[in-house]
């Protein structure tokens, strides 16, 4: 059961502004999605391990060899603002996690 409080909380975490009407609509839709997914549990017994991937592959890795990097110009090309070689962002009253 998804509540409007949960949707409002998620929207806040995702930095998405939602109107009360949108929250109501999404609460219903998300509830339907969660209920539908939950049906899988009805057929998958405890002997079936949960999976996060549809294809059973493991250990895809690369050798530890440095390759080409972006030039500073390329790196900054999509940035709205930069100062010299660094990205410029608004001061944020948070801190690293």
């Amino acid at each position, binding site marked *: 059961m998804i509540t409007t409080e949960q949707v409002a*909380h*998620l929207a*806040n*975490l995702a*930095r998405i502004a939602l109107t009360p009407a949108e929250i109501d609509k999404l609460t219903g839709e998300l509830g339907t999605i969660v209920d539908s997914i939950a049906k899988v549990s009805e057929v998958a017994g405890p002997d079936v391990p949960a999976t*996060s*991937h549809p294809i059973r*592959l*493991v*250990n*895809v*890795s*690369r*050798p*530890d*060899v*440095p*390759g*080409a*990097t*972006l*030039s*500073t110009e390329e*790196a*900054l090309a*999509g940035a709205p603002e930069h*100062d*010299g*070689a*660094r*990205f*410029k*962002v*608004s*001061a*944020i*009253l*948070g*801190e*690293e*996690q």
Partner: protein
Amino acid sequence: MAKPELMDYDKAIELFEPVLGFEVHVELNTRSKMFSDAPNPAHPDFHVAEANTQITPVDLGLPGSLPVVNEEAIKYSISLGLALGCSIAPSSRFARKNYFYPDLAKNYQISQFDEPIAFDGNVEVELADGRTFQIPIERAHMEEDAGKLTHVGGATGRIQGAEYSLVDYNRAGVPLVEIVTNIIYGAEGDAPELAKAYVSAIRDIVVSLGISEARMERGNLRCDANISLSPRGSGKLGTRTETKNVNSLRSVERAIRYEIQRQAAILAGGGTIIQETRHWHEDTGRTSAGRPKSDADDYRYFPEPDLLPVEPSTQLIEELRAALPEPPAVRHRRLKESWGFTDLEFQDVVNSGLLVEVEATVTAGASAQQARKWWTGEIARLANAAGEDAATLVSPQQVANLVALIDDGTLTDRLARQVLEGVIAGEGTPAEVVESRGLAVVSDDTALIAAIDDALASQPDVLAKIRDGKVQAAGAVIGAVMKAMRGQADAARVRELVLERANA
């Protein structure tokens, strides 16, 4: 009246039991990053670089880019897990930790959550007085480091009051292993020292494995220290704070001590501890309030869909286990025993950071006591005076050669100190400095006897005393002879000869 900010430390320990927990981040020194093939600035070859030159589309999270795991970083993480006494998960996977902060451009950090690569370990740490303590390890998981922000504007360059921030993503994607302890009880008044000893033990382990540069001042090794106080007899855990920005071993110790005193003063004054991040300030020796825990700490972890599970083979794990170096704590015990050092002598060597040098000097032929004496004594003193690292002044081989010259009677300790100065000044090997400065002990008895006869002749009263059996009177004559020889004589041999000549 304002409440005192800090409680006396001993009083705090009398009233409360400190409860600890640590999160130590280790930057691995692979050549490339965790999920991209950008050069890794935590590798010594790539340490110096202009801002935003060590990045690929993966590090910026550009659309269409996909992370691929660095196989060497997996091996380093497994080795570290094994060295921490952990079990290695037959299957582990990555997860997204979602948060909005510009230190990572993609709005999430790739980490591990419910399936870390290593778990359930134990690290033995040793306090300065030789007591050992077992630190339980909950887990060690792989993740990526974040970029570096510089706050511009405002009074102090800190976050508060900044106008904007500049971001360098070179560090984004550097391979990290985060080592998380279980809750640590029983540290009592040793809590600050134990914290330092634990971080020091982790540093020794990663250095012995060769998987990190482990320079705390460069952020290769970072410690977040959790601490809470439990009122004695209450059986209840207190609210904890997490102190960050602790960038040296000494700071770890000071920060824990400060937090114990700060929290104790608040609790004793009837206040409550706020669960929050605290920042350590090296200059003032205090912590200040950072971010309180809030709704935003809901990271909505979910399995990273762009990466596949890591399932190391038993064979790989066993190969890495077989290649593990001797654990530092075991090595310490072995060396202490084989050298016959007392606790104090051995700790003196460990605390001076010269264990490797002393060991190499012993291997090069010096006795353990002589190696210890020279490294922690004269060499450390000269290094301290010069503001340099003792290990950079002379080589263990040179110290062993110097000791050999003392042992065979060529040098006295006093002459050896002059030779050492010559070696440090770049005048050559100890033997060459002895030769060029003419510092060898005068071993020719004829020259010594002539000087002794002169000294005895000029001090007839002393001569009479010696003949009366007052042997200690010989000191005055020995002193005069040593002076005449400009110190280049073996005092024991001079004493022998003085008594012989006086009674002749």
